[in-house]
């Protein structure tokens, strides 16, 4: 059970309290539902994934727990630095109120707002007029997820192999030592060179540990891609609901017209049966028309508000998406730069070791 201690960062009194991973999950769910147009920062992975052989896949492993802790901290920092999310009261109390927070969240009734249809990841909704931008964005997020996870998988394999290369060099250390024992002039040189080989072999551990940080940065955006996709899906659903409502309205209007004029334009079982079993009385018809007219009015109002909602959604979603894009470009650029810097430092260390070994050899 990974727990995290948070401290109040913004206000004066520095408090800290304990939270479980499941509470983080609850917080995030709440935020996702309450702010559907926002790309909500992701949580770190629940289970260790993309591990290379030295890393443990065990959830209780201290390294994993530490990485998770950093990930959770990062999550909170992201939320805190978001212009909209940071103002949320539930978030605030997550940071400040130890007891009763869970109940408070549940009291908001956010679960009712949660659309269960969103849980069905693969369900498709045939939207007649999809918003091109959102379609493209969803496509992009799918591709991004695919490419980053591929990258992380290969990177893990690369790390594995590199580890092997470095470690075998350690064998040089041992054999040079043994060999130096039988040599006279060459002995010292061999011995000290062997020592450098040992250093070289050992250096890979730190190098790869550092690289894990880069992997974590990529992972964050892998999960961010999921969040991005979620926004697109919500829009899709909205659009779908809108279209369904419009469709419903249109069919009701049609029904109304038919009843009023007595013409049957569309085939309906009711129409057929009434034809077969007798017409309705004018009073009945009037009543029906009235009901329909009420429904139509309701429907029109609903449609209006849905349209408004939709437009608002699109506007604010797109604003956050732009914000997200900039954040992503900035963060990833930095991540790539620091990765390159890491590689350079690794090479420099390599040069150092081999230069030292070379010197030892030259003294043989």
């Amino acid at each position: 059970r990974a727990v995290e201690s948070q401290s109040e960062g913004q206000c004066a009194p520095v408090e800290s309290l304990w939270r479980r991973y499941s509470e983080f999950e609850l917080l995030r769910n709440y935020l996702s539902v309450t702010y559907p147009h926002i790309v909500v920062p992701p949580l770190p992975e629940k289970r260790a994934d993309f591990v290379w052989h030295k890393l443990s896949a065990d959830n209780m492993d201290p390294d994993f727990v530490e990485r998770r802790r950093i990930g959770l901290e990062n999550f909170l920092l992201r939320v805190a630095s978001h212009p909209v999310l940071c103002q949320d009261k539930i978030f605030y109390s997550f940071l400040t109120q130890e007891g009763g927070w869970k109940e408070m969240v549940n009291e908001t009734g956010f679960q009712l707002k949660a659309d269960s249809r969103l849980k069905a990841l693969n369900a498709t909704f045939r939207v007649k007029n999809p918003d091109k931008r959102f379609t493209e964005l969803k496509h992009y997020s799918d591709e991004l997820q695919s490419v980053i996870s591929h990258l992380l998988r290969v990177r893990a394999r690369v790390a594995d192999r590199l580890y092997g290369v470095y470690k075998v060099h350690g064998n040089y250390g041992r054999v040079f030592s043994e060999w130096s024992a039988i040599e006279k002039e060459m002995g010292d040189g061999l011995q000290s060179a062997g020592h450098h080989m040992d250093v070289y072999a050992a250096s890979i551990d730190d190098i790869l540990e550092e690289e894990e940080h880069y992997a974590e940065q990529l992972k964050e955006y892998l999960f961010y891609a999921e969040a991005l996709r979620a926004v697109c899906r919500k829009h899709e659903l909205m659009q779908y609901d809108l279209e369904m409502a419009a469709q419903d309205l249109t069919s009701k209007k049609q029904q109304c017209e038919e009843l009023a004029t007595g013409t049957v334009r569309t085939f309906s079982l009711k129409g057929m049966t009434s034809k077969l079993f007798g017409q309705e009385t004018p009073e009945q018809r009037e009543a029906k028309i009235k009901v329909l007219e009420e429904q139509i009015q309701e429907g029109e109002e609903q449609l209006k508000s849905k349209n408004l909602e939709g437009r608002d959604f699109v506007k604010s979603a797109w604003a956050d998406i732009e914000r997200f894009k900039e954040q992503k470009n900035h963060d990833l650029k930095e991540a790539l730069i620091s990765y390159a810097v890491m590689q350079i430092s690794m090479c420099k260390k390599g040069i150092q070791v081999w230069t030292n070994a070379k010197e030892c050899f030259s003294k043989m």
Partner: protein
Amino acid sequence: AASTPKPLPSSGPKSLREMPHPLATSSSEEMGPALTPSPDLLLPRSIADKDLSLPNGTPVDTSSPASSSSLLNRLQLDDDLDVETRDLFVTVDDPKKHVCTMETYITYRVTTKTTRAEFDLPEYSVRRRYQDFDWLRNKLEESQPTHLIPPLPEKFVVKGVVDRFSEEFVETRRKALDKFLKRITDHPVLSFNEHFNVFLTAKDLNAYKKQGMALLSKVGESVKYVTGGYKLRSRPLEFAAIGDYLDTFSLKLGTIDRIAQRIIKEQLEYLVELREYGPVYSTWGGLEVELSEPLEGVSACIGNCCTALEELSEDMTEDFLPVLREYILYAESMKNVLKKRDQVQAEYEAKLEAVALKKEDRPKVPTDVEKCQDRVECFNADLKADMERWQNNKRQDFRQLLMGMADKNIQYYEKVCVT
């Protein structure tokens, strides 16, 4: 009085100093007791004595072994010869493939430049195939049994695994053959060997080979050391030490060979993964707008790293491993010479015993044998010291090569990393 050979500036083996010069009028000198020199001793070198004239036409080593050693004294050639004092240069290059009805094989051009009197012309250029080198080596072993003959690259290659006609294989072999001849060239005694001379100069080597077969009883060439039958009483400590050293040495080199091969294997597997890694960044770059440039950059970097790594592995395979294997072969042949030495000593001891029983004043045969033994021991010490020095230099050379390669690789990384 016979002209005495130039005194050795160091405390060399006494028996050599006292040995009569073959060119001088012989006055039988008393043979001092055989002294076994310490293998640690580096016999000092001085520049060749310029007014020394070699026996006409007859290369030293076909006469009795006695003359070889004194010649060694006289010549005192420095191993680290300056170009100016060297008078023999040999190169192996220009491999060519020959396709005949019966077989396909490669010949190499052997070029010789020299000012030595043993050679009729100052320059020679002949074509030789591996068989010829092998023949030469056998002849040298036969005619110079007390010397360490440099090793040849391996004769047999596992067909199917290695392509005998691939550029890399031919080049590796050429380098090894070149080194083989250069080592002989640098050797103060071997370089004057008649067979070596013919090898470098004869247009038709095969005719000479056939001729050689017929004259098996040539003096000196057929100095055969009886194999087997004699049991060695006590091996002098330093030879036991050399034997042990060579055993451990071969063992360690073998281990290093295996380690190096393992590293190359791991590197190649690493390379496989890297080759998949790079393009993923490229794919990603295709998705992005602002990030596409840096992502493409990373992809390109990784591509360059792959190339550099490939070069490193190739260099290791072509330059590092063959040298290791060569030294292992060298150690093997050295051990054989040691065995022969043991045989000689054993024979000497047995003969000595036999003579003691006969109660003769001056045992003649054992003297020869003893002389021989001295020489063997001297040469061994000599050559062992040589080998050490060569070894140091060679090691330094190819270690520097390894380092250089690692450097190159690493510098590639540096140049190529993008920010």
